């Protein structure tokens, strides 16, 4: 090994579930009480570790859905069928239960209110979770920064934070575009189909407006969106990406 383990400041801690919120049929938010929480930045995540009776451990990362300014730390977890960790978090955990986690983690995929430029947030499925922390951070900061949210889901029922997104859309500075890829209501006025190059040309700011861009979702979604943005002339170094996928759920 090139480098021995160093004593980091990131230690495992126990949290308590205060509340659970069903966001969609497959996604649930956990509102947590964390006595040793040092505060976080919008976009960061935590690692959750489950330990079985026989000592077997499984660890997964989940994005923080709450803003630094919120009173409680909230995680939103999407249940992956046959997953090892997520079904426990979405179906079994109840208020009062304890949970072992470490965090906050990450310094790349973060947005601070001190950053300039219009903010373009693009997500697929539960990729919206860290972006929701950024949106709440934006609301708390009361900045004159324009925000555009482009979110892709299979159907309207699968749009996580749907009501909150609609409330955000009422802000003058906020524009929310929803793309539904598989099913849509008869009178759906949003985008039908994938977030592709043509849709982005219309929905994203042009490169000369120098948007600060965050893209989060499954690997295939993130790579298609990032490639389309670059095709449309967006400099790659203005696009921050975070991919997630079934590493076992």
């Amino acid at each position, binding site marked *: 090994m090139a480098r021995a383990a160093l004593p980091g400041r990131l230690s495992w801690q126990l949290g308590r579930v205060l509340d659970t919120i069903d966001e969609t049929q497959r996604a649930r938010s956990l509102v947590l009480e964390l006595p040793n929480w040092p505060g976080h930045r919008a976009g960061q995540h935590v690692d959750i570790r489950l330990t079985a009776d026989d000592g077997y451990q499984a660890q997964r990362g989940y994005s923080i859905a709450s803003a630094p300014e919120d009173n409680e730390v909230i995680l939103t977890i999407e249940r992956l069928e046959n997953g090892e960790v997520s079904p426990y978090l979405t179906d079994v955990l109840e208020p009062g239960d304890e949970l072992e986690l470490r965090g906050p983690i990450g310094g*790349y995929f973060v947005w601070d209110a001190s950053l300039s430029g219009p903010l373009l947030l693009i997500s697929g499925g539960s990729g919206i979770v860290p972006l929701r922390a950024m949106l709440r951070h934006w609301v708390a900061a009361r900045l004159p920064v324009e925000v555009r949210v482009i979110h892709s889901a299979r159907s309207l029922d699968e749009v996580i934070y749907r009501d909150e997104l609609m409330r955000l859309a009422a802000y003058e500075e906020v524009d929310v575009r929803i793309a539904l890829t598989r099913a849509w209501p008869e009178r759906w006025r949003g985008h039908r189909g994938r977030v592709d190059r043509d849709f982005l040309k219309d929905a994203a700011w042009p490169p000369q407006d120098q948007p600060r861009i965050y893209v989060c979702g499954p690997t295939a979604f993130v790579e298609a969106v990032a490639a389309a943005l670059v095709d449309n002339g967006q400099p790659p170094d203005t696009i921050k990406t975070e991919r997630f996928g079934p*590493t076992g759920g």
Partner: protein
Amino acid sequence: MTVPLDGNAIAGDLFAAFGREMTAVVGRCRSCGVTCAVAELCVYARAPGAVARCSSCNAVVMVLVTIAGECHAHLPALELEALS
């Protein structure tokens, strides 16, 4: 085939191995010379350890393993910018 993720997915283990936040640190691939943030590396997290490849030339630049609860990083082809 396993779908790769990126360096964000191993941020916790990287912190444990290096004792600091690592995803925003810039690294240079010794195989092709491209530089990028650690978060932008192509990561296969499903092996017994995590394997990070250069997103440009696909060379294995970092291997991360946890042994007896301790995370260790091996850097076969990654030069990290001076860590402050």
